């Protein structure tokens, strides 16, 4: 079948480029916004999700997000937790957010104090074979290092204590804070928190993780036990709840911009070609056939815009990461699928705009030259 839609677009390149540009912009916005959202959630929960233990034990009724957690427990609780059936190892963590001067301004870090070299709780980016930081050393997140131009060997003055950067790893970027890992005793010394732990990491053996979690909560008073996955999901949920309304509005705006751009351009093109549509009606084309032509024009513009938008989005995401390391857009296949579905929706909505004038077009008008 001769594709009238394609021919029309081919002869109106400026218009085609405009509608394609509108959709490309919409797709770019959708992918970047969703990619940033996914990227933020993935990174912010990376440590909790991938820590080398099965369970997190925290003070009951404290917030889900690690960096907002006010969980404070006695380090002596370790023995009590270790006595619960199915527990193979218990490792205290002492976590605190800290602000300290760096290059003339205050910066924030989220310190995770880990109990010794063999303990669970070091970032997975460090690898199993790498030496753990010794007292007076810390491992910092890659994004923090990039933002402040830090490298192994550099020294940070945290609360009057000089801490040497031992390594730089991935997996500790929580957008507003980045993580740093060090010996628990260093965190305790900085905050005068000897004998305290914020959380305990628990490794299980010989019993199901869920069962051990239930037993821990039942047998040890005032604690809550969650799997790494559950804590990460809860953290993602808390973060997501904050971002989702904004994401929804931005995606909606992007879709409206895309649909309006194609709709207006296809509408203008249809009105300009009203006489030709009238001729087609007169010689026997049904309204359905004419709608199909308009829909095809809309779909072709949208598809071209989608491809251009995807290419732009991946380019912009890579560029943004170089220019602003804290923003890491993680564009997944599901994001691309969503943008594709949104594009199809835009094209569909846009093709309804000119449908009315086509339906009202009377073929007899063609005879009134």
């Amino acid at each position, binding site marked *: *079948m*001769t594709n*009238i839609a394609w*021919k*029309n677009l*081919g*002869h109106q390149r400026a218009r085609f480029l405009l509608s394609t540009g509108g959709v490309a912009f919409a797709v770019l916005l959708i992918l970047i916004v969703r990619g940033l959202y996914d990227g933020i959630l993935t990174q912010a929960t990376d440590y909790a999700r991938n820590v080398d233990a099965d369970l997190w034990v925290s003070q009951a009724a404290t917030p889900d997000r690690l960096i907002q957690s006010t969980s404070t427990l006695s380090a002596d609780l370790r023995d009590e937790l270790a006595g619960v059936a199915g527990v193979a190892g218990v490792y205290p963590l002492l976590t605190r957010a800290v602000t300290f001067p760096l290059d003339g301004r205050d910066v924030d870090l989220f310190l995770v104090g880990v109990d010794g070299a063999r303990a669970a709780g070091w970032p997975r980016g460090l690898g199993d074979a790498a030496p753990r930081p010794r007292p007076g050393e810390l491992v910092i997140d890659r994004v923090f290092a990039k933002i402040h131009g830090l490298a192994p060997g550099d020294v940070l003055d945290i609360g009057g204590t000089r801490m040497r950067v031992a390594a730089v790893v991935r997996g500790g970027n929580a957008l507003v804070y980045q993580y740093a890992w060090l010996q628990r005793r260093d965190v305790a010394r900085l905050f005068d928190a000897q004998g305290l732990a914020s959380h305990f990491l628990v490794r299980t053996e010989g019993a199901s993780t869920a069962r051990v979690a239930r037993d821990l909560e039942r047998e040890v008073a005032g604690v809550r036990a969650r799997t790494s996955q559950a804590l990460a999901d809860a953290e993602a949920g808390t973060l997501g709840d904050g971002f989702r309304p904004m994401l929804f509005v931005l995606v909606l705006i992007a879709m409206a911009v895309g649909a309006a751009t194609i709709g207006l351009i296809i509408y203008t093109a249809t009105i300009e070609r009203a*006489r*030709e549509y009238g*001729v*087609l*009606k*007169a*010689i*026997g*084309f*049904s*309204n359905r*056939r004419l709608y199909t032509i308009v829909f095809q024009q809309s779909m072709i513009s949208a598809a071209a815009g989608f491809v251009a938008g995807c290419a732009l989005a991946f380019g912009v995401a890579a560029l943004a990461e170089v220019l602003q390391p804290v923003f890491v857009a993680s564009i997944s296949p599901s994001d691309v699928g969503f943008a594709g579905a949104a594009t199809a929706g835009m094209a569909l909505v846009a093709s309804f705009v000119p449908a009315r004038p086509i339906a009202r077009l009377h*073929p*007899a008008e*063609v*005879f*009134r*030259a």
Partner: protein
Amino acid sequence: MSEPADAAAEPVLRVEGLAKTYATTAEEVSATVDASFTVGRGELVLVMGPSGSGKTTLLLMCGGLLRPSSGRVWLGGDEISGLGERHLPELRLRRVGFVFQAANLLANLTAVENVRIVLEAAGRRRAPAEERARELLARMELERRFDHLPAQLSGGERQRVAIARALANDPPLVLADEPTGALDSRTGAGVMGILRGLVDEGSTSVVCVTHDPRIVGLADRVLWLEDGRLSEGAQPEPPAPVAI
């Protein structure tokens, strides 16, 4: 010229008591009043009359493009005046060819494509549609213009492409509205010559609205329409027809 239509044969077009009234805010205006006539196979019938006499309105009703206020229209044996909008496009596509005063070709399609779309719309596959479009354009002596856009064709060439388009699905009836109106006399005569030739081949009948008296000599019959009233056979003395 062909013989007059065989009385025994079913007419290609039959019109009975056709009337069209337009309601304006102030009054009702009758465009056509009680028009009745038939067009037989292989006939070229001219509908003539002064401007505003209702010629185009009559043609539109015959082609199923305008619903009559009263009266009936048959194409072959089928009454079309009662058909709804769902059925009329298909009927126009397969059984009526239209030639307009302006060729009204699709500006972004080549000559071949302008003819081909009608064939494809009627269900033909691309390759046979292409072949048929080229064959029709060749009959219109447009072999060298197959891939030209309408803007690259002369007025006469455009009108010949429009005739090829009208004939694409072998309709028994071609309705032409002032097909020479936008052409100079020589080119117009050429276009009318083509229509006459089609009728002489016997498969198509043509009803042509015109107020060009120079083409009267090419017609089998002339219908005269004045003040919305049709009188068959009554025609003013035409000037000498142009040579073709």
